[in-house]
């Protein structure tokens, strides 16, 4: 198993294809496995696709300490060093987009182009474990929560109704790699503690900000639609693309449309 030892932690990673390096960061408490549903095959045709499991997920170490998005960022830099990758296209989805912002800010030489998918710079008023999430996890149980929450936030009613087999294919990967609940909570805490809102103007590389048109978890203070808007306005060299009739998990529900948008951004 390919792993790199960094900051006293084993980070599991995989590399697929050749070409310009392309680094992927997944959503909160989600291992790198998720990118193998669609994106690895597509972009490894002409890129060196790098996926990895965050600490606390998948096959990486799971130390019982406080996690921060800065720590995830430093783990990824150690991985790039290990692979002798000078710079990469960096794509981050949801919490991964927060880690990607830090990478762009702290190590600007390592980021050629930045793709921020359904993410944000901060959670206003949001340090600590969110009450609504805790309540639902306790009432429903962990696995059921992740399933229900992912469906509610991730996929339109129409997709859920018309494409049940694709939804199950997604969950097969997402739930098979679900880490112990402790690390889900540690990831949520790191996400809630993240704040790059005062630093967006310092993100200098070409940036694509993407969000699903129908994203809007009614339970959160700031939806991904709103936080993506903040990113697009705050990052000087940003291009904003709204994906029609999509919610949070368009990488699974409409990969063709997403890949097209990304490829256009990479060409320009």
């Amino acid at each position, binding site marked *: 198993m390919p792993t790199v030892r960094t900051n006293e932690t084993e980070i599991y990673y995989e590399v697929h294809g050749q070409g310009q390096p392309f680094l992927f960061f997944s959503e909160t408490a989600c291992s790198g496995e998720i990118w193998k549903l669609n994106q690895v095959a597509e972009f490894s045709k002409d890129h060196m696709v790098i996926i990895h499991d965050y600490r606390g997920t998948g096959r990486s170490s799971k130390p019982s300490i406080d996690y921060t998005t800065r720590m995830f960022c430093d783990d990824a830099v150690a991985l790039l060093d290990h692979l002798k990758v000078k710079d990469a296209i960096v794509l981050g989805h949801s919490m991964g987009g927060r880690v990607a912002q830090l990478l762009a800010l702290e190590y600007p030489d390592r980021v050629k182009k930045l793709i921020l998918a359904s993410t944000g710079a901060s959670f206003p008023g949001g340090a600590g*474990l969110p009450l609504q999430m*805790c309540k639902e996890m*306790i009432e429903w149980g*962990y696995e059921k929560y992740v399933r229900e929450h992912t469906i509610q936030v991730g996929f339109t009613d129409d997709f859920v109704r018309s494409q049940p087999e694709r939804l199950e294919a997604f969950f097969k990967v997402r739930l098979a790699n679900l880490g112990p609940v*402790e690390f889900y909570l540690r990831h949520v805490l790191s996400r809630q503690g993240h704040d790059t809102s005062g630093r967006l103007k310092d993100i200098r590389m070409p940036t694509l900000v993407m969000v699903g048109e129908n994203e809007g978890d009614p339970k959160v203070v700031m939806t991904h639609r709103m936080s993506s808007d903040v990113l697009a306005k705050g990052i000087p060299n940003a291009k904003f693309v709204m994906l029609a009739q999509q919610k949070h998990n368009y990488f699974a529900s409409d990969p063709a449309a997403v890949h097209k948008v990304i490829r256009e951004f990479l060409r320009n």
Partner: protein
Amino acid sequence: MPRIRVNDIDLYYEEHGQGRPMVFLSEPACDGEVWKINQVGEFSKDHRVITFDYRGTGQSSKPSIDYTTKMFCDDLVGLMDHLGAEQAIVVGHSMGGRVAQLLALDHAKKVHKLVLASTGAHYPLTKGLPLKIIKEMIEWGYEKYERNHTILVGWTDEYVKRHPEKIEAYLKVRMHNLCPVEFYLRHLIARQSHDTSQRLKDIKQPTLILVGDGDRNMTSEINHRMSSEILAQGIPNSKLVLLPNERHSYFFSNPDLAHKTIREFIAE
């Protein structure tokens, strides 16, 4: 059923006996019923004992808003005004002791003497929901968590082994009417954000600080033994009494000793 309207909620309360008012404040997310197991019978002999259900518990209203210990204190102030109860002896257990400190500070005239039982002034680090509690609630379920936690924190292993029927008798009261998990969490957030650590020197009333010598469980960064010592050092007119071979719930497991200690303090 005696209820009053205070601060836009209905507050359920009970009064037993006659004499100097004596108010009992229970632990987080715990209604006033637990005091009826032992303390109401004992102290209503020669006091006007007042118990009530915090907002979010028992038969009081349960608004879905953020709770604070200040809010619980204001509810109590409304109740005492309604009852014309001045100069009360105020006994606060655990989170109730935090509410009692606020009453002694912000409504000093209402407090004749203060009993701070197994409590503290603040949690210096963890301001939101503690990860360990949430993890266990998710893994075990809410009711099982409350059972296990109450036993682990409440009594020594020896007591649990020797008196299983007594434990069940207590849990029957504690678990009956257990509030919906949302309000348990709202109470925890109120407890974690409470901070009177810089104001202890302004508590002028004679104060008894009670703690079980084995009350060392850590849900976050500080246990009740440590926090009781901080109270004893900070409150000028205070006396610390360690109850031997006891943990958190000595009001139930050793009422005779707890009552004797309190009666001696009242008589001083």
